[in-house]
């Protein structure tokens, strides 16, 4: 008997299109995982998009919210998802059934661009390439916890975890900051063998009192003792991976630990996609445009293609479109390296006419962009390749919030300012940088977090509500050191009351200033 045809399988015409585009992509030097395309109706596509691309994700209301938004937006004709691609081996990608053939071509070519990026960009190296299966397991585990402990209990615990989801250390997959510890490692606390005596230099007997003077030895022994008597900071160094710290030290039940570890592992899986948004979209757009316009586009499809391509690239009402920024930067790099517009000689040249004519016919462009897509992330990409010329050509500007009239205003068109703002919005995905400073604050088992301040205040009410969620996990009072209008401030939540207290300075008050009952 012939196997039943799955309605999501690619129909033969699209299948042959896929083979054709795949051949072109390979021919152009892209290197990708096998790709599995599925065709879906809009409803199904919205569902999968709402679930972050994973049909088997764990149940949670926020996916329902996403779904409602996507499907409503489509129904009212306001927005449309074009493409959806999952970093996995094999790579899964979804096509919209009702799309025209030219759109399918565009999406397929775009997907091969993403796929190549997932496989080769270094940020994605530590991600789990069997995430499809992993997420399905997560779903099953959470469903099991829900059956046992109740839907509401588990879901609201997930809410708390999600509220802390961004407190991860995005660099930790690449840097081993400390040895991992487990909560079952009971030996760790046992004292080591007798500490070795004070260090002595080797010396002949008669020289010994001079080379190892007894007073110095006694001094050394004393300081060593003092050292061990002083309380060890906990954690030893500030811990950026707050979720890991909670996993290791918060008094959680085993199902709670499991849920928290699931949220954390998915956060780490998605982090590289956020860290390379501009590059990833730019790279995929570069390749769909290259493949379509030089290889597979038929003359009759040209107008539709141009329409849809420009629709995707258009900046929406003055905002920066990552697709547009990415593709233009890649093209700029390609052109500069083709013409040899780099290096000290180029930098030193300030003759405008000569710069314009500059063309050493090096033809290194393609090679360079392949290198760029391997070793950069958005922050280093912008830092290295954004030029004043580029900003001027593309009409970039920086803006800022003006609190006196409650408006965002154009601030400057200076290169330095633009780059600064852009880099800031990309650093740590534009999220505040927060670490665990002390897990035993005031020697009362309270949790003390510290935020690095860069001149932008936290959203205060959100921060307080987040502390409340944090308290649910930690169960002892929690504190966050931050700045409010430039003044160091401590936000605390002790389980029933919020306090806001300025730290140090002339306004220092030992007693909490603002005591408010939770609503």
């Amino acid at each position, binding site marked *: 008997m012939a196997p039943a045809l799955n309605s999501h399988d690619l129909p033969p015409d699209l299948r042959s299109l896929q083979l054709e585009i795949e051949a072109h992509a390979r021919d152009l030097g892209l290197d990708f995982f096998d790709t599995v395309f599925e065709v879906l109706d809009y409803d199904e596509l919205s569902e999968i998009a709402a679930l972050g691309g994973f049909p088997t994700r764990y149940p949670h209301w926020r996916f329902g919210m996403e779904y409602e938004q996507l499907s409503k937006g489509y129904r009212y004709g306001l927005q449309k998802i074009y493409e959806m691609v999952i970093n996995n081996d094999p790579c899964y990608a979804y096509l919209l059934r009702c799309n025209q053939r030219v759109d399918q071509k565009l999406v397929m070519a775009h997907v091969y661009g993403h796929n190549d990026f997932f496989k080769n960009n270094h940020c994605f190296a530590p991600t789990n390439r069997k995430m499809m299966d992993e997420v399905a397991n997560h779903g099953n585990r959470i469903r099991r916890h829900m059956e046992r402990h109740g839907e509401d209990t588990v879901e609201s615990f997930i809410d708390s975890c*999600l509220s802390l989801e*961004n407190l991860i250390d995005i660099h930790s997959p690449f840097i081993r900051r400390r040895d991992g510890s487990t909560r079952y490692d009971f030996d760790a606390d046992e004292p080591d063998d007798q500490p070795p005596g004070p260090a002595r230099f080797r010396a002949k007997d008669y020289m010994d009192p001079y080379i190892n003077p007894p007073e110095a030895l006694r001094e050394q022994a004393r300081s060593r003792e003092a050292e061990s008597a002083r309380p060890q900071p906990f954690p030893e160094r500030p811990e950026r991976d707050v979720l890991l710290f909670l996993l290791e030290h918060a008094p959680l039940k085993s199902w709670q630990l499991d849920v928290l570890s699931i949220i954390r592992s998915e956060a780490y899986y998605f982090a590289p996609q956020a860290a390379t948004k501009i590059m990833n979209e730019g790279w995929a757009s570069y390749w769909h445009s290259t493949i379509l316009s030089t290889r597979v586009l038929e003359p009759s499809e040209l107008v539709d293609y141009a329409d849809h391509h420009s629709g995707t690239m258009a900046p929406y009402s003055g905002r920066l479109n990552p697709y547009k920024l990415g593709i233009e930067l890649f093209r700029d790099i390609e052109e500069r390296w083709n013409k040899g517009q780099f290096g000290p000689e180029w930098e030193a040249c300030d003759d405008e006419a000569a710069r314009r004519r500059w063309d050493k016919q090096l033809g290194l462009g393609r090679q360079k962009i392949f290198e760029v897509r391997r070793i950069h992330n958005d922050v280093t990409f912008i830092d290295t390749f954004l030029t004043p010329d580029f900003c001027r050509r593309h009409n970039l500007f920086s803006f800022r919030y003006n609190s006196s009239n409650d408006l*965002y205003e154009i601030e400057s068109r200076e290169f330095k300012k633009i780059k600064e703002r852009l880099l800031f919005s990309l650093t740590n995905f534009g999220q505040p940088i927060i670490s665990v400073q002390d897990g035993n604050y005031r020697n009362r088992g309270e949790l003390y977090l510290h935020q690095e301040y860069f001149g932008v205040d936290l959203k205060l009410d959100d921060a307080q509500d987040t502390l409340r969620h944090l308290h649910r996990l930690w169960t002892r009072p929690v504190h966050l050191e931050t700045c409010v209008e430039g003044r160091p401030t401590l936000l605390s939540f002790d389980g029933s009351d919020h306090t806001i207290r300025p730290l140090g300075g002339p306004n220092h008050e030992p007693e909490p200033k603002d005591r408010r009952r939770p609503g």
Partner: protein
Amino acid sequence: MVRKIERDQNRFRQIVRGKIKADLRKYISHGEMIGKTGGELVSIPLPQISIPEFRYGRNGSGGVGQGPGQIGQPIGRGGDAPPGPGQAGDSPGQHLLEVELTLDELAEILGDGLELPRIQPKGKANIVEEKDRYTGIRQTGPESLRHFKRTYKRALRRQIASREYNPEQPRVIPVREDKLYRSWNPVHFPHSSAVVFYLMDVSGSMTDDQKEIVRIEAFWIDTWLRSQYDGVSTRYIIHDAVAREVDQDTFFRTRESGGTRISSAYTLCNQIIDSEHPPADWNIYVLHFSDGDNWGEDNRQCITLLRDHLLPKVNLFGYAQVESPYGSGEFYHELEEAFEDVPNLALSEIRDRDGIYDSIKAFLGRGR
């Protein structure tokens, strides 16, 4: 098959309606999608819940944009999320389309979003008629409604499939499972027409921001009522110490100064109803927007006018109080005290633009 997402979707809807997880309700915001009708942008309500996290606020924030503009030129209100690529996260590739919506579609969207009931007919002569039409089929029903042809076909099919059918002796006997019945659906025939009176306080204490709120709310109410009635006429009345009828443009643009005497508007409205829109033939809506700062002794007169003249004639009297930096807002409480549980009087206070949706719901949620 129940799709997996439906569970999540129901859960979300329940939270929004306040059925479960009350702790999340305070994070509900009325996000919006932007649609376009007749060259004008309109926002479509779309509830959203954002889980709190440590995130940057507005003070000191900024970003990078692209396009023309002078330095210092505003590009967005503080209420909007600060734009920028950093916010894009892991969202799938999508882009916004700008599509023309018809007013009917808009009304449907509004009705969907706010779960507005259809308006119930008033009186007998001029009603939104509801008729039953037999358009459906179902498995159960009274024998008198049995669909003979379909039942016969099903019985035949079953007998052939189970080899009970004998062409020599074609006897078809339906059993219970074969039987199908006609069923009906209510169909609405809007026959009547309605008139909406917009009354607005244009005394000095109403600022442009408040008028903007009135304009948005009036637009949506208009859109909804037009989808419910055949023809809707609108009349506009402005008042400070005296009232006069104006056209739509003047209504939204006038700015007068001076005192407020709300009764003047009610009197005028009452006169127009009596002379041009007899309640026997019209569904009448009176919506009054003010900041609630009335001339003290006038309140009693207003209440008398409402009780004796306006309320008996109208389908709905809505009073929306926009919060103003100057107004005292006492009129709201006066009405609240005077009319407890009057079914065709709706009161709402609008604090800011977010409050518009709730206010529309308060007015139209009664289905009158």
